[in-house]
């Protein structure tokens, strides 16, 4: 028997769970619903474009802030507190993320069909930059972190930000949350094995530009609920 046959025999018992296809079909239905909503919205957006231009100034007031509340000795709850100016739960078009600064050795990773900005480097270094719509339900969710060994409230480009460093397995995971109040986005940097100062420098160098795609930035509340909302705290 060849090595290939031995390895194939050892790995062949691995099969996807029975419910996988059903879950995928459900996700497709949800995706199709979103698509239809987008089409309707786009028609409406054209009609309302002029109105939005006029409202731009009003929306530009400071409407939100980030809060960090310690939990126990090592925990930290991070939340976006919105006030009254965010009036819609409709996602906003996803902007193009332009990173003005990247730590040495990090380069863009294969990103086909993937909206996230994702960079990797030697030494298991990784960096994600994601943008979410600051929605009306944003203040209904919070992210509980545990094993936080350092955190700071920052102001980056005039925007409130919170940076925290947590133990993750044997590695260091750094998360930086920033609210772009004028454009109505929440920016999240998630980094593995990247120095604190470099993470902050990446955030300082970021700009959000008008994207050319038709996709919408996921609502912050939806993201937090899906990724952090299973009752488990962040490790």
């Amino acid at each position: 028997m060849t090595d290939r046959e031995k390895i194939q025999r050892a790995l062949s018992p691995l099969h996807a769970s029975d419910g996988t296809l059903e879950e995928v079909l459900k996700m497709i239905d949800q995706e199709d619903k979103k698509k239809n909503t987008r089409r309707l919205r786009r028609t409406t957006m054209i009609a309302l474009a002029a109105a939005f231009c006029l409202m731009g100034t009003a929306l530009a007031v400071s409407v939100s802030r980030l809060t960090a509340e310690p939990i126990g000795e090592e925990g930290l709850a991070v939340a976006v507190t919105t006030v009254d100016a965010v009036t819609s739960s409709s996602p906003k078009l996803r902007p193009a993320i332009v990173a003005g600064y990247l730590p040495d050795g990090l380069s863009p990773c294969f990103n086909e069909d993937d909206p996230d900005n994702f960079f990797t480097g030697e030494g298991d270094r990784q960096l994600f930059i994601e943008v979410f719509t600051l929605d009306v339900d944003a203040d209904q969710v919070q992210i509980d972190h545990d094993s936080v060994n350092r955190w700071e409230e920052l102001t980056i480009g005039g925007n409130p930000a919170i940076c925290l460093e947590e133990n993750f397995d044997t590695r260091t995971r750094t998360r930086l949350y920033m609210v772009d109040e004028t454009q109505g986005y929440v920016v999240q940097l998630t980094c593995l094995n990247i120095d604190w100062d470099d993470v902050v420098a990446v955030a300082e160098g970021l700009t959000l530009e008008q994207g050319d795609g038709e996709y919408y930035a996921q609502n912050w509340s939806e993201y937090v609920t899906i990724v952090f909302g299973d009752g488990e705290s962040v490790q």
Partner: protein
Amino acid sequence: VKGFSQGEKTMFTKEHVTHLADTYMDMIFRLAYSQLKKKADADDVTQNVLLSLYKTETAFESCEHMKAWLCRVTINECRKIWRSARHRTENIDDYANTLTFEDEQSYDLFQAIMALDGKYRSVIVLYYYEGYSISEIAEILNVPAGTVGTRLSRARDKLKNILTEAYCHD
């Protein structure tokens, strides 16, 4: 595969995805599990990759092109899983004990593969199970071919004893 024509953007229907899931779901799961060593995460990745397939507008030129794309998206989804709150490594024995292996040697080899570093596991699965060449793996993993060769060689060395011992009675 119906649903795409050469050089044109792909538009898959639910029926196409159902058919393609039947063909590729286990491959995606196997690759994901070998990276993550956690069944729930591997299932999540499998679902996300199949949804990406439905959403993609990539102009697939062939089934081989699509399979390589699926491998790349799977590897990327696995790379991203650590950002999730829910990701925790788990003892693979619990899951391994629910699997049906043909013989004890296969079980031991499974455990030995899973004991390798992640960068070795992906190379082992892609080379030995999926039959990709070193240069093809380099493209999928987005690393130089020399790096793939080195990883494969080291992985073989680490598995050498068990590969030699397994089935020595054959």
